[in-house]
């Protein structure tokens, strides 16, 4: 599929979609969203890119190997669990702190990092399936 319109649109849409996926990930704790949905959104962004260009180009755009994304995501999620364990609670107990001034405090805790881990695993897994399907097809 080599449509000039799609290719141009994909170029501008992909960053927007990725931004939106991060937005979805971060708002998840209070409003609909979260790591799972966010990760899937990011995967569709790359899927769009694959359709407009090809697997090789998409791979270049991702920059990071999906294997690595899956592993890193799992490690981050696992690591966030150990924080709770080392601060006296059970494995995966949430530990919270806050950043920002006293007027505008934002709570930040290990569940956020856990969610980031989920986000990365979902992106990595979807990309791995998408890329291996399309790469195979291009070879034939």
């Amino acid at each position: 599929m080599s449509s000039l319109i799609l290719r141009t649109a994909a170029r501008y849409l992909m960053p927007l979609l990725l931004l939106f996926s991060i937005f979805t990930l971060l708002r998840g704790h209070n409003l609909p969203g979260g790591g799972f949905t966010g990760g899937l959104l990011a995967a569709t962004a790359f899927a769009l890119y694959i359709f407009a260009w090809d697997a090789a180009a998409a791979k270049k755009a991702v920059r990071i190997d999906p294997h690595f994304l899956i592993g890193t995501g799992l490690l981050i999620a696992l690591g966030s669990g150990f924080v709770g364990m080392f601060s006296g609670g059970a494995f995966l107990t949430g530990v919270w702190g806050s950043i920002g001034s006293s007027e505008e405090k934002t709570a930040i805790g290990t569940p956020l990092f856990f969610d980031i881990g989920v986000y990365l695993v979902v992106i990595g897994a979807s990309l791995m399936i998408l890329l291996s399907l399309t790469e195979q097809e291009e070879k034939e």
Partner: protein
Amino acid sequence: MSKWLLPLIPFALFLAFLAAVPGASEPRVIELPLGTSEELGTRLSFRLDGLSILFALLITGIGTLIYAYGTRYLAGRTDLPRFWSYFTLFMISMLGLTLAENLITLFIFWELTSLSSYLLIGIDHERPEARDAALKALLVTGGGGMALLAGFVLIGSAVGSFELTSILAQGDLIRAHPHYIPILILVLLGAFTKSAQVPFHFWLPAAMEAPTPVSAYLHSATMVKAGVYLLARLLPALGGSEEWIAALAVAGALTMVSGAVMAVLATDLKQILAYSTMSALGSMVMLLGIGTPAAVQAAIVFLFAHALYKAALFLVAGIVDHETGTRDVRSLGGLRRLMPLTATAAILGAVSLASFGPVLSFAAKEMMVMAIAAAGEWRRPLEIAIYTSAVLLAAAAALVAIKPFFGVIPSGPRNPGGRGHDPSAAMWLPPLLLATAGVVLALIPGPITAALLAPASAAVHQTQERLYVSLWHGINAPLLLAAAATAAGFIVYRTRERWIAIAEPLGRIGALGPTAWYGLFLRGMNATARAQTRVLQSGYLRVYLMIILVTLIALVLMANAAGGGIRLAWRLGQVALYEAVVAALIIAGAITASLASSRLGAIAALGVVGYSVAINYVIFSAPDLAMTQFVIETLTVILFVLVIYRLPRFSVLTPPPQRVRDAVLATLFGAVITLLVLAAQLEPVRADLAAYYGANAYVKGHGRNLVNVILVDFRALDTLGEITVIGIAAIGVYALLRMRPEVRP
């Protein structure tokens, strides 16, 4: 460098356990804060008393010598890190087994010793004989382990605890319990398989495929004694009954005699030693069966003496093999001049094996005879058994020590015997030390008896009976009988060829023995596995799917029939128009998808179903679900489109009857799921759950989105499991697509 450090591991442990010897008479229980489960009654607790310290010292002490020996013996192997890891794993497991206070902890270490023994026997995994021997050992001891676990669970439910302290204190309760006989059978199955009692003995000679340090350590000095240890340990709880005495005395005596017979008939040095080990284990089991304080004392002293001399003899066999390249006694001779130090160790070890002379095993044999003399109705048969095996073991000892070292050097081009020399000190010193210890400790038995052997036997018989070890009791009947037996043994050795000729036809009976049964069992198991795999693993996705669906339908219907039928909630009161439209869309999409004549059409129709379901979520205010469903649907369609390219042209290949069958199955499955959903409506919703999450999501989870807080905080462990599955699934897809065989034209 590491060569010298390796023996320090067991040596450090040896010193540590040596430090515990002064308190050996008082049992101490040490509990580690890990691995405790109150619901299951399992604890990582350990017990230090006379018996466990004796075993720990044997394991680490002999271990030190064998580690030192092994670094030399195995030099040149390329898999040494693997070998020593397994070896050390074994040592730790064996220590855990003998030190465990909790029965479940004991069982876990028990299985670990079976496992590490399997790995060590099969270390030369390129050789089929080594693999078969390893599997044999694993299946026999592992099968016994299963029985043992069941026995332990029954003991635990009878006593209400898995801790040895309370089990040993409640022997009367266990012996009077209705489950006593099953407990006894199961525990004995475990102990007999591990300690190579007839008819489970056949794995032990096969295990001689392992490198000699392994045979010396696992299959003579330590692991095979685990069964004896368990019987000794549980004697206060299970022993003393008629059934106990009968089972142990018969099995032990049979093993003692048959082991001695097979030892004389064997020609491989290690096989001779393996069968004599079997015989020794049999006599220990027999003594524990008698169970009187005197018998227990004899068993403990003999166990100690046997560990020393048998390890020494195995190490000698290893040296002979290492230096001459053969272990066949028929082609060995005259090694005395070539390796005088090894010969000394061999002679001392053989005197111990024959149990006649100034050696600890002689004192043990005397105690054994006296214990049997007090065994009441069992006295006669057991005396016959012990003297028969004494004659045969003396012959075996002559075979091990006289033939290779003093025998005539066989001539002929094929005979490797008659060459070689004493190896380096790391190899000849351990057997010499062990064999000498048997003599020295017999001449000065006082200190070791008081410090080690007396507390060990007291931990088993639990009385104040004094332990008195002595070589010289004056000229009495047992001494004369022992002398006669040894002399008879020497005659058997000289006339061995004739006995072998007599035994030849008897060997044919062996074809009906346990080894044949094992082969039959193994073949049967493989055949069953192949047959059921052929039925269940057809390789067709549609068959797998069908099996899963039919099973599910059957199970759900059965469960409902058993539960008195299904009740349904029909609450179709107010249906808004838009709800009806969405429902109609889903139904229309599903019907279109199943009737579509092109793949793209079917996928588009499925997309309609998916999006309509998502709209459903929106209507019933589940925005998180709806969002995820939308994105998933989109991705699914994309993936389908990518896959479609690769499929051949769509065509109907299934004949009509098959299509009808599939339609019926699909409808049935849909109906069952619908019924389940409707039935679930009747179940009351747990109001407290929703209230809990509602109240705590923000306070404890710092989030207003309940769904997300549950996902990443309250039930984060589930999510962690799910993302792991996602990752593994992705790797699976990747592997399937990448490692596909070349597409057939």
